[in-house]
């Protein structure tokens, strides 16, 4: 790549032109993404307990190669962990099935909130085995907050 001081005036002006044009071109997409990016800051939480992504089938090595075949409809699976609590998610089309795996489920009901940047939270209660379900889940960024009396656990954002 050419060093800046090796560029003649006209070459430098040409690079400047494309740099400046980039800000004005695709302005609509950029403006929309800028607005969403700024709004993301409203999701700042100072003291949420964050789970870690343990596994995402969409990040498996070779996932894209496989999905180019006929098996593209295999469910997407994600799992998150923090301490003794694991959250398993499986997405098939628009149906989302999940499980909260936890040795200690003695303290009453567990709820799972499905959070999206542009929508109201949706809340489901887990059944006796820790399973929960959301239907009509559209693509886009999502995270989950698992709550039980006294504690809650938030997953990182992921794009479905």
């Amino acid at each position: 790549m050419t060093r800046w001081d090796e560029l003649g005036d006209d070459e430098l002006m040409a690079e400047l032109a494309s740099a400046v044009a980039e800000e004005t071109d695709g302005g609509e997409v950029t403006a929309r993404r800028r607005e969403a990016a700024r709004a993301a800051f409203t999701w700042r939480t100072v003291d949420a307990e964050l789970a870690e992504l343990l596994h995402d089938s969409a990040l498996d090595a070779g996932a894209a190669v496989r999905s180019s075949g006929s098996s593209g409809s295999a469910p997407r699976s994600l799992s998150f962990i923090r301490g003794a609590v694991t959250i398993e998610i499986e997405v098939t089309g628009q149906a989302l099935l999940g499980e909260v795996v936890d040795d200690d489920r003695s303290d009453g009901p567990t709820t799972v909130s499905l959070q999206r940047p542009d929508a109201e939270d949706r809340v489901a209660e887990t059944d006796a085995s820790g399973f929960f379900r959301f239907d009509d889940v559209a693509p886009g960024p999502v995270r989950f907050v698992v709550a039980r009396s006294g504690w809650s656990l938030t997953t990182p954002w992921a794009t479905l």
Partner: protein
Amino acid sequence: MDTTEPLANLVPAAREGDQHAWDTIVERFLPLVGAIIRQHRLSDADGDDVSQTVWLRLVEHLGALREPDALPGWIRTTTRNECLRVINARGRMRPVDPQADHGLDAVVDDMADAELVAAERRQVLRAALSELPAGRRDLLLLLLEDPPVPYEEISARLGIPIGSIGPTRARALDQLRSTPSLRGLGPDPVGGPS
């Protein structure tokens, strides 16, 4: 705060809840995120999802980001990963040669580098432009207008004689070359090592 403010100031301010510092970070790295999304040839809608996820992830990651200079690399890696996730999750086909032994990541990286470097150069240039005195920046911007603005009008708008437009342009470009951004002395140019 403008986009040349050091990340060492911006990141802690955003961590403390300063929306303006956050907006400045967004302004600075939105083109980088956009360039990586373009390389992965996502649709506008998928690109919107990736972009939003990257910024949401950054909001939750701010507290853990102890080294502000690591931010450009973090954004790059996170954006690439989210692009791959979306491509994979939505079963999109990619031109992958299964015989090649370096796999998908290397293919993406090869495609990525040339355009990434170009995007980072454009970003550095815009930063350099913002470091110029307003009069010289305005002159360059007027000279870049398409269709071209006649010298008579430039002269009238900037209040400088027609005869000095050429020499001022040359001086402005020299000054641009010696800005901290173009000399690589910027606080932490986006084009730094990954």
